[in-house]
């Protein structure tokens, strides 16, 4: 049956046998592919880049302090906690689910940290472990409700929002807030600790180098397997742009205090989640369940278990985010996790490019989105705007992000891209 027109001519690469398809090669090809992609509604990082440029132009015009190195360092300190929570939101959004209780979960986490560590005098690692286990347990409950009773996650987590907030108030007791010692490692981590300059520069160069190395290895493997390989020119150009941007960013931050360890830990977790989502069977199953749960089930994927892991990951990330927030504020209070934390984390994930409709997104969207959200919040604070105005503007930004997501989705559907 292989004696057909499709039979590839000798010497042709496996994936280049079909002559009807345009294969973009080299730099101009990559550029053309990118333009096609954006036109069809696959926006990628574009909204974030445009958003950041717009925000920094507006805010630095209104208040030059906005772009000062030390303000940006502060921004990174602030971004880590919400970024971690957004990282969890990416996990549930990928399945087309939602967790509205992440704010309360983070608040509860900071309360537990305060009570166990400060009030009861337990060692910090044990307190953090207890917090993470609590997060995982809450996620298990949500997953169980969703799997066993088909309870829509937005209802289950809305109930959780109130219940967890109640628990937070209960364990904080009548005093309502617990201060954490300023000399403790946790608070120093949240407010002072900065990476040494040499390490920051090393970490700024590493991604570009890894990109080139990975590209070369990939090409080697692909040509060994008789598959076409992407030209190195594209990889090298990308690597150069990335390295220049990162080194400049680090140089600029080093003019102030430098790169916070807190932010570094956040980026490390982004990298780990990114690996898990793109290179493991678990990640592939997450995208499959988000795209077509019934198809995933028929392929033998345990859909219920995947859902459970997503909710557990989300609540656990939210709990860790709560610990980070407590470290940042040096206190656990009744206000922790309330207000705009929920909205900021969800908005960050959506702005970064994770679809609310499931099956599309990446760990990077938490990192990129949280930079946009935190830039807005930081800029508005610098303008001495009251929180009433800040809430309204952040709400508007989330609405815009969702509209962009919906429009892009419609455009992708009409261009035959999922």
């Amino acid at each position: 049956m292989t004696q057909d027109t499709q039979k590839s001519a000798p010497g042709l690469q496996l994936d280049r046998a079909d002559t009807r398809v345009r294969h973009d090669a080299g730099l101009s090809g990559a550029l053309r592919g990118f333009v096609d992609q954006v036109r069809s509604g696959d926006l990628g990082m574009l909204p974030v880049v445009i958003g950041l440029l717009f925000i920094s132009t507006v805010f630095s015009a209104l208040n030059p302090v906005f772009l000062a190195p030390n303000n940006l360092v502060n921004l990174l300190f602030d971004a880590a906690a919400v970024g971690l929570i957004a990282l969890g939101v990416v996990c549930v959004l990928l399945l087309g689910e939602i967790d509205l209780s992440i704010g309360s979960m983070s608040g509860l986490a900071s309360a537990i940290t305060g009570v166990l560590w400060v009030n009861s005098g337990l060692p910090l690692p044990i307190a953090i472990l207890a917090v993470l286990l609590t997060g995982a347990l809450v996620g298990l409950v949500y997953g169980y409700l969703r799997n066993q009773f088909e309870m829509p996650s937005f209802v289950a987590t809305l109930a959780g929002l109130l219940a967890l907030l109640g628990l937070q108030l209960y364990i904080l007791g009548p005093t309502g807030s617990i201060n954490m010692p300023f000399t403790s490692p946790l608070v120093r981590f949240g407010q002072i600790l900065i990476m040494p300059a040499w390490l920051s520069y090393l970490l700024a160069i590493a991604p570009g180098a890894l990109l080139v190395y990975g590209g070369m290895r990939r090409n080697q493997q692909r040509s060994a397997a008789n598959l076409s390989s992407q030209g190195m020119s594209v990889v090298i150009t990308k690597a150069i742009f990335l390295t220049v941007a990162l080194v400049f960013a680090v140089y600029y931050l080093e003019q102030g205090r430098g790169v916070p360890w807190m932010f570094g830990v956040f980026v490390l977790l982004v990298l780990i989640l990114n690996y898990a989502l793109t290179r493991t069977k678990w990640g592939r199953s997450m995208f499959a369940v988000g795209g077509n749960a019934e198809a995933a089930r028929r392929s033998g994927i345990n859909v219920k278990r995947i859902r459970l892991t997503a909710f557990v990951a989300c609540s656990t990330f939210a709990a860790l985010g709560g610990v980070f927030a407590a470290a940042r504020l040096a206190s656990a209070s009744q206000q922790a996790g309330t207000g705009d934390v929920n909205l900021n984390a969800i908005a960050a994930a959506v702005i970064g490019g994770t679809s609310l409709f499931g099956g599309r997104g990446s760990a990077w969207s938490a990192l990129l989105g949280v930079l946009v959200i935190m830039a807005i919040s930081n800029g508005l604070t610098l303008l001495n705007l009251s929180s009433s105005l800040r809430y309204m503007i952040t709400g508007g930004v989330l609405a815009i992000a969702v509209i962009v997501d919906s429009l892009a989705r419609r455009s992708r559907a009409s261009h035959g891209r999922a």
Partner: protein
Amino acid sequence: MTLEATGPGDGEPILRLRGIGKQFGAVTALEDIELDVHAGEVVALVGDNGAGKSTLVKVLAGVHQPTSGTIEYLGRQVTLDTPGKALEMGIATVFQDLALCENLDVVANLFLGHEISPWRMDEVQMEVRAWTLLQELAARIPSVREPIASLSGGQRQTVAIARSLLLDPHIIMLDEPTAALGVAQTAEVLNLIERVRDRGHGVILISHNMEDVRAVADRIVVLRLGKNNGVYTADTSHQELVSAITGASENSVSRRAARKLEEVGEDK
């Protein structure tokens, strides 16, 4: 594609269904179904819309659980409670709705649930295997790195069939595999069915197209209103099959044929 016959020799029964029934609330979709599939044979399952063919397929694929009856597979009585279990045991299915994830690319869909090295997916090896499989099916897929959403109906069908062959199953069930295919691709699928059979696998083919069915089927099992309505061979006349499917020799198809015959007679 390596279709190794690790199972029973030719002619031995792989699958034996006895008294299978399935109810959806008040509706009886299947009642007392008997079906045997032997190694190295193609069993066609035919019947009108609503005869219960797709329900039977879903029971065998582990998607639905039967309300009564027994399934004997390779001489042992089994329960197929999840799709994963059916796949593991070697019952592969190409569903009528294909069950593909539109947001994933061709390679990801082919290997879904069975990725090579789960903790560090080997994309290169999976892509090579995908191309080999697709070329053996003479498939015209422009790129295996495009999401399924960008493929045509026929291309999606081919991907779904290729996926079912990935795990060297004992039995392959094809629910309307040629409905969306062009002339050449239909022929390729029929060729493929014969080749799978010659390797000693059992094939269950569901089709409305009597031409396709008679071209490849060793036995034709007719379902009518959720019950068995006779077993036929490929030599059976078209009319006999139609009357078995519709339940009477006097039916809309025969009436139409008779009317046409009359009209032709009057014209002369």
